[in-house]
């Protein structure tokens, strides 16, 4: 569903175990993650990115330049608008240098770009999570025609070349509210991957004794689904969503890179990389900085997701 496949799509995630998500395991995951230096570095980097996103206006007030302010003094118009100074114009005034041609501050645009990436990918994750979990549980619990309908829709959506289709939809729709459109489109094609796993696990869980016990004591269908089955799916949901977020960040950046995502002048990492394509040979920093941020964010999330999964798998094997 993204430009490159994510771990989520091909690797088996979690097996249904009744002891899937006890509060102890959450603490244990936290302990494993804080002990692992690599995981800690990832958490630290992600914390910085999130902080940038949350406090964007404050940070740019400190750094002195907003994301839309042009600085014609920082670029050399006689050389076609290449930034003055070494390394793409990095200086005390412009911490990450400036954009060629119009001299917008790269630091400010990275900070505001983080906002876009984080908002879109988190919203898409929440929407995908809700759709995937609810529909997956319904299909797995009720079976019969409910399962048939939901499963056929999932087959249909997964048969689509998602990226090309997202591009097609986004390019044919009127501009409107781009970020919202992006979230809707990404989630529409993303939920089946989660729902498929949840459906399978719900089917196994629905046949277990504690479900029968709950029924015997008079619980209604919905109570069984949300009070008995859902808590047992927590482990898989956590793993699958952490592994999905990097995919959504990549997808958002990819769509913006292709020019159907967030529309200018709003800054987004993908779009910054896209506009750096025509400058990469004269001003490599213009592309290296957003490229590095995008890569490190996706990497941190992937590594973290992988560590959490290993922690949960080990916990399940032990219990």
């Amino acid at each position: 569903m993204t430009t490159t496949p994510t771990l989520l799509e091909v690797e088996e995630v979690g097996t249904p175990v009744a002891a899937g998500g006890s509060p102890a395991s959450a603490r244990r995951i936290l302990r494993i993650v804080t002990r692992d230096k690599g995981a800690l570095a990832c958490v630290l980097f992600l914390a910085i990115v999130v902080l940038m996103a949350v406090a964007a206006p404050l940070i740019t007030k400190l750094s002195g330049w907003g994301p839309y302010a042009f600085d014609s003094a920082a670029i050399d118009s006689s050389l076609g608008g290449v930034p003055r100074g070494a390394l793409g114009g990095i200086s005390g005034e412009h911490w990450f240098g400036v954009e060629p041609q119009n001299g917008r501050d790269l630091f400010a645009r990275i900070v505001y770009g983080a906002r876009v990436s984080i908002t879109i990918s988190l919203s898409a994750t929440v929407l995908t999570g809700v759709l995937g979990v609810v529909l997956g549980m319904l299909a797995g619990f009720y079976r019969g025609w409910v399962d048939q309908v939901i499963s056929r829709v999932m087959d249909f959506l997964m048969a689509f070349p998602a990226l090309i289709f997202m591009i097609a939809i986004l390019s044919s729709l009127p501009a409107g509210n781009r970020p919202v459109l992006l979230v809707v489109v990404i989630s529409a094609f993303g939920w089946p991957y989660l729902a498929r796993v949840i459906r399978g696990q719900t089917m196994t869980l629905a046949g277990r004794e504690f479900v029968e016990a709950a029924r015997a004591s008079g619980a209604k269908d919905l109570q069984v689904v949300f009070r008995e089955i859902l808590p047992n799916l927590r482990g898989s949901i956590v793993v699958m969503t952490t592994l999905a977020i990097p995919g959504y960040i990549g997808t958002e950046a990819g769509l913006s890179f292709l020019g159907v995502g967030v529309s200018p002048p709003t800054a987004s990492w993908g779009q910054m990389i896209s506009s750096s394509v025509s400058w990469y040979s004269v001003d490599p920093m213009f592309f290296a900085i957003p490229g590095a941020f995008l890569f490190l964010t996706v990497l941190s999330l992937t590594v973290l997701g992988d560590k959490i999964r290993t922690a949960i798998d080990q916990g399940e094997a032990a219990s």
Partner: protein
Amino acid sequence: MTRYVLARLGGVVVILLAVCLFTYLIFFKLSPDPAVMICGKTCTPERIDSIRSVLGLNQPILTQFGEFLRGIVAGRDYGAVHCPAPCLGYSFQTNESVWSMLTSRLPVSITVAVGAAVLWLLAGVIGGLVSAVKQGTWWDRTAMALALGGVSVPNYVLALVLQYVLVVKLQVLPFPSAPAFGDDPVLWFESYLMPWVVLAVGYACLYARLTRSNVIDTLSENYYRTARAKGLGGALIMRRHALRPALTPIATIFGMDFAGLLGGALITETVFGLNGIGKLAADSIAKNDQPVIMAVTLLAAFFVVIGNVVVDLVYTALDPRVRVVSA
């Protein structure tokens, strides 16, 4: 078996029709005025009117869709121009039938896709296998760490880094230009090398991780231990008892990934300026050339759906366990 194949093919037709309808509705129902979109940015009102009447845009949507389907089977006339048999539409911006635009770009896309596929299969499976055999060593840990990194690089970022380092700075490779193989095989190889690598890296890393975990799982199976106990050893046991069951899932995933490659090729081709179908799609998006975007979407869906069926059929042939269950 024949009945199964026929049933699957029937399913394919249904899904493809649904994809066609869905795509058609999105392009012709959701957009405010398709004729304006199709005509392009610089367009006279007269031309917009003629497009509207030629495409029958004032007729009910199902009639339009019927016409579109009939065009694919029997060809279609757009006013004075005739669009021959597999008519997926006509680009009013380039004055060309979409089908001929697609077929003329197909060779480049196939070269990119096949080369990348060969590369990622070799690198992924061999890397994963070595890691599994040497499980826990520094080689295994380094390879798996690299694989996590490789999965995380967006391919356009990798493409730009490679291009900057290898073409601009070190000048060891030419700028990719898609020359014909016959003219200069060396140049051909050199200019496709970067696109292949860029497209392959993400998949290679995933396949390495997958191969590793599959082989490790197999090595702990009972039948493997039995084979060991019987005194089989070395290459034979590896090939027959460990590799075959471990690689069957890889084969099926490979089929799906290969069929869905058009999406990844879109970015790779665009960044390297290779004139394949992916670049055609990106260019058409930039110009908002709706008939072409729609045709590429349909083509990509076609590949994915066909790929699914082929994978299922191959899977039954490869894995005897599935055959026993289905019989």
